[in-house]
């Protein structure tokens, strides 16, 4: 087995409890998410699949503290996001969560390296150290040549990979990514998945939204959403193969 155990015993990093999100009111009410329970432990990589409009991005933004739940709770390493004030929430988002947005969300006025270094500088590390980390992150994704380019000087695929590097710098315990392979060709997409997989194997908890099963298959567990509800999930293969190996002996 390549991935170390993510199953029972590992500390939960992300817990969603009875999570719901309602938009609008009256006849225009949209239940974007209903009563979601989901726990993702250290070392575990979970993929969220579902048709467009099924609530995937809503789930992710709530998990990342970017939106407020209408009901239920989001806990990150045991802390209920609903109990935090603005600056506490901002700190947890910066230090514990790496977030890859569906539309990359790079800051146009900053170069690739500066975009990646920014969250680390906000963490309080020196500009020099942050830049060093940023360059190392770019090297990991084979993209050192864009370090000093601005987002509008990069291809969609490059921007996407820079956004991923930004989410992976520092020791973020929770990596959330929304369609991180959207603009990538098959081989680059795979490299990105290998990177996310590796980060989880090293102990982070990962949640990735995707509609492509080939990428979802890199996850330990696949969760299926329909109309805001979790309708099904595959069992973590680590747990299953542990069972299987026991049967064999």
């Amino acid at each position, binding site marked *: 087995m390549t991935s170390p155990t993510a199953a029972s015993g590992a500390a939960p990093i992300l817990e969603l409890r009875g999570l719901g999100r309602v938009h609008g009111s009256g006849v225009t009410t949209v239940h974007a998410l209903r009563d979601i329970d989901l726990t993702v432990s250290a070392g575990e990589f979970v993929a969220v699949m579902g*048709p467009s409009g099924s609530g995937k991005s809503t789930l992710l933004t709530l998990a990342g503290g970017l939106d407020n739940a209408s009901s239920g709770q989001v806990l990150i390493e045991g802390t209920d996001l609903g109990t935090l004030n603005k600056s506490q929430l901002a700190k947890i988002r910066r230090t514990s969560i790496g977030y890859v947005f569906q539309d990359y969300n790079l800051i146009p006025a900053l170069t690739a390296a500066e975009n990646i270094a920014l969250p680390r500088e906000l963490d309080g590390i020196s500009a020099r150290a942050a830049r060093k980390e940023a360059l190392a992150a770019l090297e990991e994704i084979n993209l050192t040549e864009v370090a000093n380019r601005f987002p509008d000087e990069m291809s969609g695929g490059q921007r996407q990979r820079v956004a991923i590097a930004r989410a992976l710098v520092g020791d973020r315990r929770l990596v959330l990514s929304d369609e991180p392979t959207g603009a990538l060709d098959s081989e680059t997409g795979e490299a990105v998945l*290998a990177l996310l997989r590796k980060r989880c194997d090293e102990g982070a908890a990962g949640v990735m939204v995707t*509609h492509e099963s080939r990428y979802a298959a890199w996850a330990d567990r696949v969760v299926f959403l329909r109309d805001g509800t979790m309708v099904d999930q595959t069992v973590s293969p680590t747990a299953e193969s542990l069972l299987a190996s026991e049967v064999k002996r």
Partner: protein
Amino acid sequence: MSIRYGLLALLDYGPKYGSQLRAEFESRTGATWPLNIGQVYTTLSRLERDALIEPAGERDGKQQRYRITENGRRELADWYRQPVDRSHPSRDELAIKLAMAVGTEGVDVGAIIQAQRHHTLKAMQDYTRLKAQALADGGPESGEEMAWLLVLEQLIFSAEAEARWLDHCESRLMRLAARRPARPRTGTQPDDTGAAHDAHDEHHVHDDEHAHDDEHAHHRITGGTTA
């Protein structure tokens, strides 16, 4: 068919015993389609009958070595040259299942689709873990390791195609659901044109064996290597 040419291709490298052929076939395909030794010998005797291979040297106890003939080389070259025929697709059980289920009262097509999607994703997860292993430490080095990776990726891409097709079926059916009343299961509709279908069935009898093989391939691979 593919066993026949697979063995011929291996014999093209030099004379071999049946047991060697079996082992080499399996290491190239990662035991995806395991051969039993009986199948190997049956295929070898047919190849010999068709003069595509011949005994190489004396029988060594129970074992006989074979080598490829000139005819065999020509036939093998033809096989490599010609595309694999896709104009007579083998019956797909899932397609048949959905074709039967759609519009049938009391059958939840959505549930069938989700159960299949779950199963297919699970298989893809297993293949992908094997693939990650194959890619670790700089990736495949030998021809055999590369062959195994290609076979694995074929399984992943086929499963992906199935998953996409299921997504497509689901959204299509959802759009249609509102417009069509369900067809009752015990109705008074006249019987289907059974005869024509039976004739067709006969034509494809051997395809079922392949389908059966495929069904178990997943368990064989993952059972052997992942745990």
